[in-house]
């Protein structure tokens, strides 16, 4: 399946793109996605562990199972307010 991922702030800047996609096996989890991200974007390797992954606009744990239609985002530590 193809999972689309949105990137923000320093994650976007380090990856050089605001959105990208990954080809993952059916049943892949957030943990698998994290591995795929680091493989394709080595510049995110030391930064991604500090980021949360959002699935359908809510923070998702690493064992969350992904599906193709979900909206996924890489959420660096926030600094709004």
């Amino acid at each position, binding site marked *: 399946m193809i999972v689309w991922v949105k990137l*923000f702030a320093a994650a976007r*800047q380090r990856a050089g793109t605001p959105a990208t996609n990954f080809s993952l096996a059916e049943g892949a989890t957030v943990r698998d996605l994290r591995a795929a991200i680091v493989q394709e974007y080595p510049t995110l390797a030391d*930064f991604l562990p500090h980021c949360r992954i959002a699935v359908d606009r809510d923070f998702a744990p690493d064992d969350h199972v992904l599906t193709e239609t979900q909206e996924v985002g890489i959420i660096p530590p926030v600094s*709004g*307010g």
Partner: protein
Amino acid sequence: MIQLVHEPIDTQAILAAAAHPHAGAVVLFLGVTRQLTAGRETESLDYECYPEMAICKLRELEEQARAKWPLLHCVVVHRLGHLEISEASIAIAVSSPHRRAAFEAGQWLIDTIKEVVPIWKQENWQDGSREWVHPGTGLPKAT
């Protein structure tokens, strides 16, 4: 009321939105662009956002605040884009029959927004460098 705006925040409109005949207290919090952070001088700020999720999260927080305190109105407006010194990046206004609830809810909202709402600040330092603010990463700056 939850809003993400790209223009200066209209505090009068926000206070008007928080007014209620049963209100005895209104607390307005403004987060403003500070000139000095840990001794370094800021020239301006830029705010970036994941808007769909930010709106969802802000609505959740409004709901949670209303469950915790007897609020009459709860208004949160966050500004995005480029901000100069002394401009407000966020305004939170809550009204309640008694003041303690309004103070507590206002403080809880800003504390929690700073933890869970996907909005990011970029410091544009006076020396020309730029830096995303990502609390707790302790990493070398992104270029």
